[in-house]
Every structure is written in structure tokens, then in C-alpha cells.
């Protein structure tokens, strides 16, 4: 591998133009998914992926969609080539469907559509998309099934079918697929938005080939892979060799551990998950390709954040995941809960090891940030106020607070996917929000504090059945906020709580809008992975995780603490006890002399060990 990121005869300007064109095509595929799709997952949460591949299935270009799906769809393209090249053929305008988690998908709800791209009769590449379809015919509505003990409980599982044959939709297969779900119309729309996005890719790529010729497009494509690989290897080589590890846990009745050891030598990274727990009879297991993809995403978000997402950035990475474990299960282990449990935990520990590694590099230590493993959310289903059965998502997990960085506070909300619009939700489903806002008192303390995270509460309103069904998922367990970094405190955990037997219906009937949970009365219970009912006297409270802090809170600038007290993020008592900052009077005046004295006193206390 040459150290020079541009090695071929392609001139740099042409390289920039064409590589950005390929990026824009992948982005436009995503736009097509959003414009044609109709479910909250696709149009608001952005729970999708759209990307381009070389003729052999290697990743060529991805837009801004999730990195681990970009890697997994590469596996999917290769599985389709293996299955069809000598059995039914791969023809122009074909589109294939695959959602088997033991071949390439992460769980069945993530339905991949894969389309060959031909130019003048020759296969020149592939496009691929996934959307998280609204239902997949599993035990629980929405696909994530807490009660599943094997994959056969988790819905339709297809190792590869040709859904569009030379441009003709195979309606027999299409109808067979959607009729196995609880919401055929919306799932049909999901599938059609994927077909549309793959068609966009085909038309744009064929136009690109027509304009620039196959030789130049091929040369630029190879150059893009070389470019990402060369720069990533150079960056890895800049960091001292070493070994770092971390362990995360998933709580679902029992506890499962995900352990990683990251070994960095020269310009290579080896993620070794030896020591992780045996696979579970609970859908938290993450297939190997998804474990690999999660490590790829961790690299894309850190060392390769500014590089084109392609196969070149995969090459310096190796992943060992022992078979029969939660990070490389074998059939019939269930997987339906995995993206926000096993997957979130793998990403968390992989990122944690990377952060420890970056901290040892003078050049890269500034990129270190505290990590968050939260992301709880829920599906909901029932008969809506318009008399129709529905399945949808409460995507509050997007309101997790991010961890602090080495140079700034975490973002208060906005980790990962996007959150749904409340007005839209209330217009379509029999739910009424009591509040959605930033959480107070949860942000992990530090020299830089974590993001606050968000909290929401809702109840059932105008439901013909008087109730709806919910499915709780995500990283269950009270340490799911992750960790602070280098002394920074962890943020408050994410939790889902159902308050039953409340006065909420009575208060709403009296035109009162409760603003606090304690106003509505009733008794609360935390929701692990489970199905649950929400009735008109119940309140579903969703608190997302707050981000962890970075560094010693006694080193935080007192003015920043004052700002947080003014904003209600930190109480005056916490300012004193955790940050050692003294704020006096009703008009909140900072007392710097008293602050210095209090901080000195806190440091003395620290040297008195407790056992």
C-alpha cells in the first residue's frame, strides 16, 4: 500500500468531481427513500441505508447513512451474487430482496434491496438499500419480539429472491411478502421506496458512465478505495502500538457481557471479542457481519470521520468474534432486538477501546469523547382514532444526550437517528403528549459536561379500544448511559416507565395539562424488554440517557457552571458538591474566592479513602 493517498494517473480535480458525484448519488438514493416512503422509520427517523458497490460487492460509496449497514449490505450483495449468478442469472433491471440475518441483514425488519447496475450490457456495479419495515410478521408488532426464543419466532426470513425481474415487479412475490405482515399497505410502501431508490442509483450511474466512460469511472472508483485505505492506514500508524479493552453488559433477565480487546500494531486494528457471553435465547444476539459492521462504523465515526465511506476503510480492520457467542450467534438464536441491544453494546465497547487508543496519541487525543450506550425506544400498535389498525415507532431514543468531548460539552439531544414530530404522531395515532423537553439534572459532570438528554411523557387519547400495545426495546439496564471519560461522571440512565392508575384522563377532561409526573399520581414500574398495554389512565414516561462528562469537574470553568445553573441543567447544590462552585443570592452571583476555597477543600476530601 502506497503512503500516497493519490497514486494513479487520475488527475486530482477529476477525482474530486467524480468521487463527490458518487457520494451525491448515494445521498440522492436516501432522498428517494424519504420522499417515496411513508412510515416514520423512513421519513422521520432516517432508519435506512443507501449505498453503491463495485461489481464484486465491495463498498464504493455511501451517503450519510449508517456505516454498519453499509458494510452489511456489502455482505448482502456478495450473497446475492453467489446465489443467482449461476441460478436464474443477474440481468439488467433486476432487483433482489434479502433479509436473512444469518446471511447479511442485521435483523429481519431490516429488508435489503439489491440492484445490479449494467452499462451497455456489462455488470459494472450494484446499489443497495435497506429500510426498517414497519412490521415483519413476528410475534410482536413492529418486529422486535421480547418473547422470541428462536429466529423462527421473529418473522419472514428470506435468503434472497428476485423481486423485480428485468424491470417487472413480481407481484406474486410482492403480495406474498406483504401479506405475511400486520400492515401490508405500509410495508408495501416500504418496499416500493427501496425499489425507487435503487432505480435512482441505476439511472444516475448509467448517466455517469455515459458522460465519463467506463475506464475513467473505474479508475476513479479504485482510486477512492485506495485513497481511504491509504489515509486511514497512515492515521493508524501515527498512534502508538498497544492493547485496550472494555466490557459492556446487556440486561434482559440474565446479564450478557460483550468484551472486546483492541490490538493496534503498525497500520492495522484487530478487534477481538473473545470473552463475550454465549449466545442468548433472547433476541439480543448480533450476527458476525453486523459485529464487523459495528466496528467499521466505530472507525468511520472516529479515525475516518472525514474520509469517503468505502471498502478501503474496511481493509485495515480485522474482527474476531467466537462462534456461538452474542457477537457471532448460530441459528436458531433470535436476533430481533439486536440493533439497540447487542449492536449498541458492540458499538459502545468498540468505540470505548478506540477512545482509549486515541488518548495515547498526541495528535489524536483531541478527538476523544465520552460514550453513550443508551438508546431506548418503543414500538406501538393498535386501532387508531380513524378506526384503522396501525404499527409505528416512538423514536425517543434519538433524544439521547451525547458524551462530552475533550474540548466541548456534549450535545443535549441528537444522538443517532432522528426523532418523530409530535403533531404528526398525534394526528395519526391515538396518543397525546404531556411533554417533551430536555432533562434536568442528568448530564454527566466533568470539565466538559455531557448532553442533558430528553424526556417525554404521553398517554392514550381517543383510542377506540381504550388502549394500545407497546413493545419496549433498546439497551435495558441502568448503566446504559455509558460512561464518563477520564474522570468525567456517567450521565443518568435511559429508562422507560409505565405509570398506571393515574389521574391523567381526569385532568385532561378538566382541560389541565400535567407538566410533572408526580402530578398525575398512580404507581410506576420500569419496563425491561417486554410488551405492555397503555390505557387511558396510564402514562408512558421515556427518559433518554444523558451524556457522560469529560475530565475532572473541579477543572470546569466556573462561568460554565453558572450558565448551567441558570439553565436549570445543574442545581445550585450540585454546583457546590460536584463542581465546587459557589453561587450566591437569588440573582445567581458567582463567588470566585469561595469557589477556590471550596475546590481546595474538595481535593483534601478526595485524599481520604473510603472502603
Amino acid at each position, binding site marked *: 500500500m502506497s503512503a500516497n493517498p493519490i497514486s494513479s494517473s487520475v488527475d486530482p480535480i477529476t477525482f474530486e468531481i467524480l468521487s463527490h458525484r458518487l457520494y451525491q448519488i448515494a445521498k440522492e438514493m436516501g432522498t428517494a427513500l424519504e420522499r417515496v416512503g411513508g412510515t416514520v422509520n423512513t421519513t422521520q427517523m432516517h432508519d435506512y441505508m443507501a449505498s453503491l458497490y463495485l461489481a464484486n460487492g465491495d463498498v464504493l460509496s455511501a451517503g450519510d447513512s449508517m456505516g454498519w449497514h453499509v458494510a452489511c449490505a456489502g455482505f448482502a450483495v456478495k450473497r446475492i451474487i453467489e446465489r443467482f449468478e449461476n441460478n436464474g442469472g443477474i440481468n439488467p433491471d433486476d432487483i433482489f430482496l434479502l433479509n436473512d440475518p444469518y446471511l447479511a441483514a442485521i435483523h429481519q425488519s431490516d429488508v435489503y434491496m439489491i440492484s445490479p447496475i449494467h452499462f451497455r450490457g456489462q455488470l459494472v456495479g450494484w446499489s443497495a438499500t435497506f429500510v426498517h419495515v414497519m412490521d415483519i410478521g413476528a410475534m410482536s408488532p413492529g418486529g422486535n419480539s421480547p418473547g422470541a426464543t428462536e429466529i423462527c419466532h421473529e418473522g419472514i426470513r428470506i435468503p434472497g429472491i428476485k423481486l423485480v425481474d428485468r424491470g417487472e415487479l413480481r407481484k406474486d412475490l410482492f403480495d406474498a411478502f406483504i401479506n405475511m405482515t400486520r400492515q401490508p399497505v405500509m410495508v408495501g410502501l416500504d418496499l416500493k421506496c427501496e425499489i425507487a431508490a435503487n432505480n435512482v442509483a441505476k439511472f444516475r450511474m448509467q448517466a455517469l458512465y455515459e458522460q465519463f466512460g467506463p475506464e475513467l469511472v473505474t479508475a476513479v472508483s479504485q482510486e477512492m478505495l485506495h485513497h481511504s485505505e491509504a489515509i486511514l492506514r497512515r492515521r493508524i500508524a501515527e498512534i502508538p502500538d498497544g492493547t485496550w479493552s472494555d466490557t459492556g453488559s446487556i440486561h434482559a433477565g440474565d446479564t450478557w457481557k460483550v468484551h472486546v480487546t483492541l490490538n493496534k500494531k503498525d497500520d492495522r486494528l484487530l478487534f477481538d471479542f473473545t470473552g463475550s457471553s454465549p449466545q442468548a435465547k433472547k433476541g439480543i444476539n448480533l450476527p458476525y457481519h453486523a459485529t464487523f459492521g459495528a466496528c467499521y462504523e466505530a472507525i468511520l465515526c472516529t479515525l475516518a470521520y472525514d474520509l469517503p465511506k468505502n471498502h478501503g476503510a474496511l481493509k485495515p480492520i480485522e474482527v474476531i468474534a467466537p462462534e456461538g457467542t452474542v457477537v457471532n450467534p448460530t441459528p436458531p438464536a433470535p436476533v430481533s432486538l439486536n440493533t439497540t441491544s447487542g449492536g449498541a453494546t458492540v458499538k459502545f465497547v468498540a468505540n470505548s477501546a478506540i477512545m482509549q487508543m486515541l*488518548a495515547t496519541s498526541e495528535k489524536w487525543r483531541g478527538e476523544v469523547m465520552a460514550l453513550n450506550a443508551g438508546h431506548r425506544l418503543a414500538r406501538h400498535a393498535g386501532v387508531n382514532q380513524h378506526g384503522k389498525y396501525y404499527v409505528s415507532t416512538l423514536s425517543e431514543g434519538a433524544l439521547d444526550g451525547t458524551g462530552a468531548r475533550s474540548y466541548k460539552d456534549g450535545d443535549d439531544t441528537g444522538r443517532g437517528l432522528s426523532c418523530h414530530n409530535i403533531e404528526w404522531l398525534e394526528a395519526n395515532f391515538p396518543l397525546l403528549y404531556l411533554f417533551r423537553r430536555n432533562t434536568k*439534572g442528568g448530564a454527566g459532570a466533568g470539565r466538559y459536561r455531557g448532553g442533558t438528554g430528553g424526556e417525554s411523557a404521553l398517554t392514550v387519547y381517543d383510542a377506540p379500544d381504550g388502549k394500545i400495545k407497546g413493545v419496549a426495546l433498546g439497551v435495558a439496564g441502568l448503566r446504559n448511559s455509558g460512561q464518563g471519560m477520564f474522570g468525567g461522571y456517567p450521565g443518568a440512565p435511559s429508562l422507560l416507565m409505565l405509570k398506571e392508575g393515574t389521574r391523567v384522563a381526569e385532568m385532561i377532561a378538566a382541560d389541565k395539562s400535567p407538566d410533572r409526573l408526580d402530578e398525575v399520581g398512580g404507581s410506576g414500574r420500569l419496563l425491561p424488554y417486554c410488551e405492555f398495554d397503555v390505557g387511558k389512565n396510564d402514562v408512558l414516561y421515556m427518559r433518554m440517557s444523558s451524556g457522560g462528562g469529560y*475530565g475532572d469537574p473541579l477543572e470546569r470553568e466556573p462561568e460554565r457552571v453558572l450558565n448551567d445553573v441558570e439553565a436549570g441543567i445543574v442545581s445550585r447544590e450540585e454546583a457546590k458538591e460536584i463542581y465546587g462552585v459557589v453561587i450566591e443570592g437569588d440573582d445567581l452571583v458567582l463567588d470566585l474566592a469561595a469557589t477556590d476555597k471550596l475546590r481546595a477543600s474538595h481535593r483534601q476530601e478526595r485524599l481520604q479513602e473510603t472502603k
Partner: protein
Amino acid sequence: MNHPLRANLEITILDGMEWVRCSKCQRKHCRADEDWRRFCKVRLLPPTKAGVLMSDLNGQYLLRQFYCPTCAVLLDTDFVEEHSNDAGRA
């Protein structure tokens, strides 16, 4: 040649050996192949010392903090299960 290990800790070479050192007060904690946490002052605190919203962790976890024994800078914070061996180690 020094290189950072993490915030407030660095690796330094003294007398031909690599050491973990506090980058605030220059205290030499231990050899680079040893666990520096074993040479820290440690406190185990109730979870709510990290904020009132940690109350759900009461009775299950303790907040554990590691400090430089000389300058008292906070080097690491984590949660440890209350009845685990880790909590006893402190």
C-alpha cells in the same frame, strides 16, 4: 520521550524504563506495564453523588473514583456493582 496515556496521565521514560506519571504534579505512579489504578486513592460513593437522577441505581451500584494521591486530580469515574469484588477492592 513522553506520550499521553489519557487526560492527566502520561507515559514517560526514566532511567530506560517506561513509567505512568501524573501530568499535573509529575508524580510517578507505576511502571507502564502495571495497572495505574492500583496506585490511586479510591473512593466509593452513593450513585446520587453523580446527580439526583441516579437514584434508580441506589442499592445496586456504587460510584467509584480514582484520584492522584498527590494532587488529588480525578483520573477516572465509573459505576461498580455494590456487592462485586471490584467494590471490595477500592
